[in-house]
């Protein structure tokens, strides 16, 4: 990824490679950790590295959290947070299910509904934060609870079944547009590339970094910060909408009571990927690496049949290590 924003420091001496490593040390270490963990599990149980497990187990289990984490990356780079993405996932999936079944929409119609509803929910967060000037933590905590309730109410506490009603809904995530490569993973990959382009090559991306670096200076520079913040939260919602579509396709149904807690997994992926909770700094590729680290760990520990409770401990330790490592690195670089 050509990364205009965080490009060459051109510090004295040093070859291009070492300059790159120094600049991208966060992502380089994250990627290295991912490789080390992967190799470890492969040595412990070679079946771990089988394509069936990699595609169907690891990559597929990254799709939903990964798509949400992409959206959350934008929000966190602005210095904000979105706690509502987990329950919004449930609400969008229920609304998509109900709409598709009631209006007899096809696959494309359903996807469109998901993206639109997700975007609307995201912009509500943006409006609460900018117009009502609520702190993002509070605003999205409120919408998190509201979305949870609405998901239960709209669904009447029952899963909404797609199969039979919509031809090909299963194929959105589980089909194989490219042989042996599940569509869900393809969607995640394409979404990551698009998100990366938006973040690094467009006006919206530029303002995302600007607001996170210094919101007041951005405002005084004549940028309509509120408007762009709403756009960022809306974009986050769009990715949550896409995640909801992929999830319903994976499950063949919309589950109203699922999603609470997913926001923390998405945020963890973003942070493991080197995006700073303080804002102004972050990458999509880092987020994808972060999400992969978590799903490789969870899948690998299952394959090793380690007692399940230890998974939680291990994932917690990885988050601590990732953030601590980032702190040490930044202190050495004199950023703190």
């Amino acid at each position: 990824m050509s990364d205009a924003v965080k490009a060459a420091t051109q510090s004295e001496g040093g070859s291009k490679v070492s300059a790159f490593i120094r600049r991208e040390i966060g992502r380089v270490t994250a990627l290295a950790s991912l490789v080390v963990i992967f190799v470890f599990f492969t040595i412990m149980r070679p079946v771990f590295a089988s394509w069936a497990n990699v595609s169907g187990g690891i990559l597929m289990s990254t799709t939903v959290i990964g798509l949400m984490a992409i959206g959350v990356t934008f929000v966190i780079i602005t210095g904000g947070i979105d706690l509502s993405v987990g329950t919004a996932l449930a609400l969008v999936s229920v609304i998509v299910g109900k709409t598709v079944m009631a209006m007899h929409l096809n696959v494309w119609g359903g996807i469109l509904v998901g993206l639109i509803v997700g975007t609307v929910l995201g912009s509500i967060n943006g409006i609460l934060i900018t117009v009502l000037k609520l702190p993002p933590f509070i605003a999205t905590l409120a919408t998190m609870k509201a979305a949870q309730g609405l998901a239960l109410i709209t669904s009447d506490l029952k899963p909404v079944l797609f199969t039979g009603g919509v031809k090909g809904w299963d194929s959105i995530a589980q089909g194989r547009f490219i042989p042996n490569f599940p569509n869900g993973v393809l969607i995640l990959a394409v979404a990551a590339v698009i998100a990366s382009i938006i973040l690094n090559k467009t006006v919206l991306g530029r303002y995302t970094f600007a607001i996170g670096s210094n919101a007041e200076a951005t405002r005084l520079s004549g940028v309509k910060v509120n408007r762009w913040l709403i756009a960022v939260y809306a974009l986050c919602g769009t990715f949550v909408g896409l995640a909801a579509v992929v999830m319903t396709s994976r499950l063949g149904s919309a589950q109203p009571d699922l999603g609470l807690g997913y926001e923390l997994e998405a945020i963890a992926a973003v942070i493991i990927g080197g995006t700073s909770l303080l804002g102004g700094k972050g990458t999509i590729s880092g987020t994808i690496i972060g999400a992969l680290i978590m799903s490789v760990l969870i899948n690998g520990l299952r394959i090793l049949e380690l007692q399940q409770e230890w998974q939680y401990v291990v994932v917690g330790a990885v988050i601590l290590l990732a953030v601590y490592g980032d702190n040490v690195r930044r202190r050495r670089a004199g950023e703190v």
Partner: protein
Amino acid sequence: MPTAQLLALTGVSKEFPGVKALNNVHFDLNEGEVHAIVGENGAGKSTLMKILSGIYKKDAGDITYKGKSVSIPSPLEAQKLGISIIHQELNLMPHLTVAENIFIGREDRRPGGIFLDNTKLNEAATTLLKELELNLDPTAIVGELTIAKQQMVEIAKAVSYRGSVIIMDEPTSSLTPAETDALFKIIRTLKASGKGVIYISHRLEELAKITDRITVLRDGEYVKTLDTAGTQISEVISLMVGRTVEQDQRPTNRNIGNEIVLEVQGLSDMHLLKDVSFNLRQGEILGFAGLMGAGRTELARAIIGADPKTAGKIILRGKELKIHQPSDAVDAGIGYLSEDRKRFGLMLTQNVTFNIILSSIPRFANKLGFLKMKSADGIARDSIAQLRVRTPSERQYIKNLSGGNQQKVVIAKWLTRNCDVLIFDEPTRGIDVGAKDEIYQLLTKLSNEGKSIIMISSELPEVLRLSDRIAVMCNGRLTGVIDNKDANQEVIIELATKFSDDLTTVN
């Protein structure tokens, strides 16, 4: 007065990746002495202070404290030795009282060790404040005090450790002249009690008033230590910058148009501004002088829509502007350069190009919203060349640039946006003496090219040197506008203190 040596640094060096921050630096401090360290930004003053206060570890050299060789591995160790530092940005807890702040971490407890003993705490604070002749209420909430009084709390806190060395980093940067005098009185009290004070300041005129010796650093190297008595400021400056800098100049060869570009009528805000009216002509530099808190920054922010106004009109070239938010002012071509560049002007963690194009991003985007980075980098390179920004490239991070070069980047941002009314708020704050001169020339050049400039400054020589006319504010009102030829420091100070009987002053 005893003259025993308190502290001596010999051959101290410190290297950061790619940068020699300090190279073989010497420094010593005696009891009852105020010893200034001066130098341009990047000369190594803060690195030296951070080594003394245990934040950084030196790579080489010796530190002797009261005759014994010591190492200072942590701020706690520095404190134990008796070295206290008062940072430029005060480190107080605004919601706690004066006494609580002074003794934070060392609170008196009631028997049993669980409950705090506030009576004892306040008594101790009262004794300490009396000793320092500070007129402060130990039970006052720190956040409600003026900056000057907060600084006194910091000093009291530093003294409360009963150390022998107190480091003051730019202590007068946000004080009024009266407050500065009060501070000097306290420093003299400290001196008299045998403490050593290391004094860091950009305000060279203060050195003669308060210091005994001056050590000059340049580019991490030790240059010279001078006795203050018998040293001219110009000598210090030339040691700092390695050349001579002229003082006390006035504008010459000015070419001011007749057209009134900006007219402000009856501007008021909720808290301070009352009925401010003035106008700004094409190619003019209009200086704004006044004491701290006179309302000059508030005026600038009200004009550009950063804060709400309660009354008043802003007329640009005969047309009234409806300004509700900063983007309205920017769209009209009015740019504001804040006194606090790091908070309100720059993205420190982003690069030069990013900062220069921030106000003009739509110009560097195609219809789909994609940025044309090549053209953005090109413009940034042009600005760097035009304004002589010293940076290895347009992709350098702003935080690695010196204050003067950072200021040039902010100027470049507004020039890129084609703003022709520029409001500079303290344009040389935190900028080295050498770079100041360059900023002055740049402001003059910009105005000669037809930009209309409002320049807010608390440094009177600066105001007199650059402004075609000088507007003076006091307590939220405009108390006078004078032509440069009629102006001198006395006249300005008189206007700046008009109606100011109710101003709160220190002590």
